[in-house]
């Protein structure tokens, strides 16, 4: 009994010493608090990404039975991705479809964001917000499948049009660029709305009223006042939508039906289907570079222009 008490008091003493010790060393405590996060980031992000970059310069070889690559330094994977006509087509599809998706999402999202920011009725705002948020948080897989139900040959849209006798044969709405684009637009629109909403809301409505009272028509007010002032939000929306679609995987993998492929699908095919790690890694590095270029490069470039324009 006695020894337990002695042990307990010595433990308490050690603890309080430890706390006093830590109090005096805030830097050490901060490092201690950061340690788990940094551990996770280093071991599941930094090291894997670095090794992905390294392996993208290796040579694929079926002779190496265990790993299927030879450790050398070669650019052949990148050369193949950027010269082979099939891979070039996939890269072009990725960039082109994403550009269309971004533009359409912006045109569709802007009015809704405007309504969300400016509607006087709390009911309308609540309804719009709820729909946007629910779509935003519903996973890609579910949404893609929902689109398949609508776009199939025997899907809702085709059957409705046939029963209305507008068309006689079902239209091909998926397993092509159109289907992929539609699903991606569905993914981008909530993103666009949420990033535009804030910057439209922060525009002083008096400015619009002033323009209107000076005789400007609604369209003029929009083009001369609202749109220029909301440009920072527009830039963010473009960046998020474009970077998001370039990296899209689920929509092209399902609604592309093996015909339309994005670079992400090339990564998956090479890594998982044929275990060609070097080529798959190179494709992943290409996507990674494109998205970094969009997010950081475009942001720098466009934001500067926007700021210069506003001033």
């Amino acid at each position, binding site marked *: 009994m006695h020894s337990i008490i002695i042990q307990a008091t010595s433990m308490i003493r050690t603890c309080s010493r430890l706390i006093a010790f830590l109090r005096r060393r805030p830097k050490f405590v901060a490092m201690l608090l950061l340690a788990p*996060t940094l551990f996770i980031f280093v071991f599941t992000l930094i090291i894997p*990404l670095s090794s992905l970059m390294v392996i993208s310069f290796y040579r694929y070889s079926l002779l190496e039975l265990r790993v299927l690559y030879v450790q050398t330094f070669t650019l052949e994977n990148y050369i193949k991705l950027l010269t082979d006509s099939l891979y070039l087509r996939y890269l072009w599809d990725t960039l082109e479809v994403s550009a269309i998706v971004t533009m359409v999402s912006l045109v569709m999202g802007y009015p809704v964001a405007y309504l969300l920011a400016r509607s006087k009725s709390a009911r309308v705002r609540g309804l719009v917000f709820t729909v946007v948020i629910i779509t935003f948080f519903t996973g890609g897989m*579910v949404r893609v499948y929902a689109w398949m139900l609508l776009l199939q040959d025997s899907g809702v849209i085709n059957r409705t049009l046939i029963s209305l006798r507008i068309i006689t044969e079902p239209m091909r709405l998926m397993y092509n660029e159109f289907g992929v684009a539609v699903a991606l637009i569905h993914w981008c629109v909530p993103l666009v709305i949420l990033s535009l909403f804030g910057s439209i809301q922060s525009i002083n409505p008096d400015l619009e009223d002033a323009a209107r009272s000076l005789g400007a028509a609604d369209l003029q007010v929009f083009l001369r006042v609202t749109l220029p002032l909301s440009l920072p939000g527009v830039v963010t929306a473009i960046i998020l939508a474009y970077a998001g679609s370039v990296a899209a995987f689920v929509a092209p993998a399902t609604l592309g039906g093996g015909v339309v492929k994005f670079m*992400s699908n090339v990564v998956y095919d090479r890594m998982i289907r044929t275990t060609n790690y070097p080529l798959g890694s190179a494709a992943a590095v290409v996507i990674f570079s494109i998205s970094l270029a969009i997010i950081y490069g475009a942001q720098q470039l466009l934001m500067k222009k926007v700021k210069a324009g506003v001033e």
Partner: protein
Amino acid sequence: MKKVIINKIPYYLIVAFCFIFLASPLIVAVLTSFSPGVLTFPPKALSLRWWNVLFNRPEFIEALRMSIVIALYATVISLIVGFLCAIALVRYHIKGKDLLQSFLTLPLVIPGVVIGASLVYYFAAIGVIDSFPKLLAAHVLSASPYTLRTISATLIGFDRTLEEAAMNLGADVIQTLRKITLPIIKPGLIAAAIFAFATSFNELTCSVFLTSVNVFTLPVLLFSWTTHQMDPTIASASAFIFLITLSLIVITEKLLGINNWIGRAGIR
């Protein structure tokens, strides 16, 4: 007055179109999952036939179990880790804090395919064969920026004099944490937890690289179903995932008010 309304017709048309565009696929999927025979929309009668088939498929039950287990683990881990990190970032002077903060949002910026691809090779190289730790690591990584940002946002608005008062009145560090700090930041923690859970539960792009024949999550199962066959049970499975996500949103709305929540989550 009439002219004003005519001018605004294109505007309202786009808004209405966008609204239908956003809402219709999900409504169609949910309603279709209740159709009695072949998948039709609108269903002629409501039936639970395909839901019944779905819940009798062993692979669905297994995937559901795995999704929930991984989401729970990922939520708890990313919550604890995010909390510690948020305290360090908000309350301590750290050199290069801005740089560190943007570094910690990297998982949001880096495409899921890139993370998935890098982890496939990496885990093979270090000899991790079991899919469970792989998936868990990926999910923790993708959920942690959300928990970190949500909790940081809560801590920034925190009145620290409350903690000092508790300390002055003789409370120790643990007591202050339990009685003062945690109760005050509780809404932020709940939002972060729901955010992390929803992220993990819906995660596909990264997971698709890391699953195996025995260990797979619900979105991955759905993915392989849609790419291999068009089966009526997929509608019920999608509707099921959608309804779970929906109920998470409704719970958050009831607990916190959704405007508040979005502000905290720091959606750009």
